[in-house]
Structure formats: C-alpha cells, structure tokens
C-alpha cells in the first residue's frame, strides 16, 4: 500500500476542522505559494506536475489554467465542479464531507494563479452534508485569513461561494454548469469559445473537479518530484477509485493510476460476490464496459482509451455472473435519456427510442432487427451532439452489444414472419 495523501485524514473525527487540517500540514502549500511563487510560476509548476483532471476528461490542469488570457480587464472566475453525478462515483462526496479544506486550499491557489477574485463551488443539491461541511470550511478559512481581502497580507483577495445544484446530471458538463450558475437551464454550449476565454458571465473561467483541486496543495507542500514519483509518469499523483457493484469490498480506494483493472477489483474490491465476474465498467456508466477478457488493462487514461473505454471518474462498477447485461444496458440508457437536457435531437430522441427498444427486448418481445436498430441509433447519436452525454450513452450501449450480443439474442423472439 502506498501512503495515503487525499484520504490521509478522512477517518479522523476532527478531519473537517481547520485546526486539524493545519496541524496535519494543511495550508502549508498555500503559504509557500504566496511566499515564493508568482501566478505564472504557479501555473508552470502545476504544468510540471503533469496533474491531469480528475473529473473525467483527464485534461492537464496546468495547461487549462494557462489558457486564461493574461491581459484584459474582465474579471476572471474559478469554479469547482462538485456536481458529482456520474453513476458509480462517490469520491468527491467523501472529500467534501470529511476533508473539504484540501479542495478549498487548492481553489485558493488556482484562483491566485489565474487572477480570479470570485469562485463558486457547484455542489449537487442531493449532497446536503457536503454543502454543510464545505460552507463551514469556507467560513473557517475566512476566519483564519485564507479567504477574503488581502489573503495572508498579500495583494490578493478571493471570495468563495457555494452554489447548490438542483438535480441535473448534465450540470457536471462544464458549460452547462456555468449556464446553471448564471441562472439558466443546464444546457451545454458549443465550444469554442472555451470557458478559459469566455466562460461564466462571458468572462475567462477555469473549472476543475473537487479531487483535482484537492491534489494541488500537496504538489506545492511536498514538491513536484514527490508528486510525479507516484504512479505512471504520464498520469502521476494519487487517484481515488470508487469501487461498487457486485464486489465483496466496495469503497473508495486511494491508489496510483496504472494498476490493472483486475488487481483493482480482485485484490482491493475483494472479488465478485458470486465468485465469477462477467464484466467491469471502469469509469462511471459513460465508460464502455470491459468484458472478462480485457481485465488486465491498466487503469490510466491512455490504456483505457486504447481498450475502447475510458478512465472517466475512475468509478469502477463490477458485474458478476448473475448480472443481466441487457438489463444493465437498459438502466444505463434510461439514465441518460432522463438526464438528456433536450437540446440535441440525436440524444433526446435517440435515447428515448433506444430505451423503448431495450425495454421491449428485456420483456421478451424483442425482434432480431431491434438489435440492428440499436446499432443504427448508437451510430446516429455518437459524434452528433453538443456535449459528451450522447457519446457516453451511445458508447456504453454499443459496448454491451459488441461484447454480449448473445445475451440480447437469448431474449429475442426466435422466429418472426417479418424477418
């Protein structure tokens, strides 16, 4: 086992208190930044750390910060994406409920780097305790002078506000999240312009995930060399894996990236409930499932992409041999259909249609041509929507058809005069 970084304090009864956080090294990174680094140097340092975003896309964090224009008189904004809604994902909730100061310290450093004086934490409405603990932590940070005017005697000032979501998965998509803060329906916008140029209120904006921000203070307090020595060179640092589904030991595990999916579900997850796995979803339900034959894939961005899936939010859902793939595919499709914002027809109509077909197949009334129709629908949705929701839905469904077509065929009406 490697040393715990992000989860170091979560089991301690005082883990949410600022005093305890400081006592265990908290806000040291921030103090170092204010003492030794210019904003540009912060960005260069985070670039050098190769920190990749923990929200899903795995975009290099320092690079994202560097896209914010250096000049211009518009205010800049920083947003924390705490709208954790990808089914199977529950790591950010743990960070906010048990150790919210890591995220807040990371946000202050990021805001300093990009010159933002206002920041929002967009927390999904269901996460009542996360909202409570984050709000308390922000207040404590103001009391200690880490937030507010002239932070730690510097020229830099920052306010952080919590914006409570109201039950829309799509608001985890960054442009939809910004729309939502602006008081609109959470409907994604076409990029470019990217948020770094024209984001919140048409101003330069950086959006990062909770876990991404939580990594930032450690990079400064312990150094880039320490950070890059954890896990693979191209995707270093601690990572939270959420293990759920038909496993003996589900939970949040902090591990380096690059372990095999098999190690993760068998050694850490304790193996399948029934003794035999059927498939594993490696990165939230948007990530195409991996059949048993693919379990040796390494858990990092590049390897999973090469295997036709994705690391996403590192939410691993294991299916044992009692799981029905068509039923799981139907449930995933219904989820995406329900959460489609309705803006793009391929996603809105295509997923509704696919859901109907999948229900029909599951109830034993499906025809062989329904499977072909599902393939056609996946092709029609993929690549034809504004945001990644449609792609995720189509990719997830397509993988079930590819690897488990026999399970669908077993449910199909065997003879039909129409075919």
């Amino acid at each position, binding site marked *: 086992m490697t040393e715990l970084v992000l989860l170091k304090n979560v089991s301690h009864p005082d883990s949410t208190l600022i005093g305890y956080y400081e006592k265990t090294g908290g806000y040291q990174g921030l103090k170092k930044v204010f003492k030794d680094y210019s904003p540009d140097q912060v960005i260069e340092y985070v670039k050098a750390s190769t920190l990749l975003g923990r929200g899903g896309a795995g975009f290099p964090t320092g690079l994202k910060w560097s896209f914010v224009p250096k000049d211009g008189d518009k205010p800049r904004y920083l947003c924390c994406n705490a709208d954790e809604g990808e*089914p199977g994902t529950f790591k950010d909730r743990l960070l906010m409920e048990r150790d919210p100061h890591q995220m807040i310290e990371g946000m202050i450093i990021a805001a300093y780097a990009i010159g933002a004086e206002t920041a929002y934490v967009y927390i999904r409405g*269901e996460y009542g305790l996360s909202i409570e603990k984050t709000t308390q932590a922000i207040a404590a940070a103001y009391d200690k002078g880490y937030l507010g005017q002239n932070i730690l005697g510097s020229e830099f000032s920052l306010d952080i506000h919590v*914006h409570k979501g*109201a039950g829309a998965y799509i608001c985890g998509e960054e442009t939809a999240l910004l729309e939502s803060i602006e008081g609109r329906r*959470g409907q994604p916008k076409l990029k470019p312009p990217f948020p770094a140029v024209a984001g919140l209120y048409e101003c330069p904006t950086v959006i990062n995930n909770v876990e991404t921000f939580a990594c930032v203070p450690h990079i400064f307090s312990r150094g880039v060399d320490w950070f890059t020595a954890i896990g693979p060179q191209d995707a270093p640092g601690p990572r939270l894996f959420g293990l*759920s589904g038909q496993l003996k030991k589900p939970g949040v595990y902090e591990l380096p990236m690059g372990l095999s999916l098999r190690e993760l579900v068998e050694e850490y997850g304790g193996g399948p409930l029934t003794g035999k796995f059927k498939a594993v979803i490696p990165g939230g339900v948007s990530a195409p499932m991996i059949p048993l034959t693919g379990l040796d894939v390494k858990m990092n961005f590049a390897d999973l992409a090469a295997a036709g899936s994705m690391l996403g939010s590192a939410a691993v*859902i294991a299916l044992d041999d009692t799981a029905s793939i068509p039923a799981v595919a139907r449930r995933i499709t219904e*989820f995406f259909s329900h959460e489609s914002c309705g803006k793009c027809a391929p996603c809105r109509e295509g997923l509704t249609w696919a859901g109907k077909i999948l229900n029909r197949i599951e109830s034993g009334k499906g025809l062989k041509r329904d499977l072909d129709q599902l393939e056609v629908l996946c092709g029609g949705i993929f690549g034809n929507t504004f945001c990644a929701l449609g792609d995720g839905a189509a990719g997830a469904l397509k993988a079930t058809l590819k690897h488990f077509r026999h399970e669908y065929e077993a449910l199909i009406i065997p003879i039909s005069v129409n075919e």
Partner: protein
Amino acid sequence: MSEEYTSQDIINALAEPLAEIKKRYPTKRSAIMPALHLAQDKYGTLDEPTYQAISEMLDVPKIWVFELASFYTLYNDKKIGKYHLQLCTNVSCMLRGVYDLMDHLQTRLGIKKGETTEDGLFTLIAVECIGACDVAPSMMVNQTYYNDLSKERVDKILDQLSATEKET
C-alpha cells in the same frame, strides 16, 4: 393563489435572506436557483405564488423562474409527503437488488412509485445515482441517507418513522 399563502407572504418571509444571497452574484438571474431552494425549504412545494414572488423580489421575468423550476428535478411542483423516500435505482444499486426493495416498498405502502400515501406521510420515488454506490442499495429520506438496505432494514426505517408520527 394558494390558500395557505400569497406571493406577498413569500416576499415577506424570503426578501431578507434573498438579499444576502444576491450579493454573491454579479447578476440577479443567478439568484433564481438559490431563491427556489429557499422557497422550497420553507414551503415544501413550488407554485404560482412562489414564482411570482421570486420574479418580483429579483425583478426578473417570471418565465426565467419557471423555466428553472421545471428543468431541475429537485424542485417539486406538486405536494410531497412529509417523508420523501428517494430510492436510488441506478446501476450500482440495481446490481445490489434495489428493484426488489422498490417492489417491497410499493406493496408495504400501498402506492406506486411517484405517489403519496393517503395520510400524506410518505412519497415514494425512484431517483438517479445519489453517490452512495459503495453502500448500495441506498435511499434518501428527505436529506438523510440510509444505506446497505434490505427488506428488513427498510421495514425498520418505516416502522420508526411511523412510530415518530404517532408520538407527535
């Protein structure tokens, strides 16, 4: 107009906290979501007088208020029971047998999902992932999580809630 309150009552109750919230944002429109949360926390349900009141307090068109209330699933425009049973039915909970629990809850409460019991105590709904996948199956009763559910545990929770009601 609602029988219990008018939009003026809502303005009287919420104007002050809303004025504080407004300061967090450069535009009034951004305060609509927090305003809807405030109203729902106080009255339980959102309705015409509420939209009217928020529109007046923030000086924004009423349609801006309504379009958010109708888009976001956590905003209720119909009356819900005192205990809002929100059972997660997404994949991780499904793999841990939540569909049987849904059947069990429907039978025990004598309602279908989406409905409220006659005494107005329980509303049962299926919800998407609530981020409690490692302790699935899971449900929220109002804001409280109940995890590692089984039929026995669900029965116990309902027994306790019903008993609390009888005492009060």
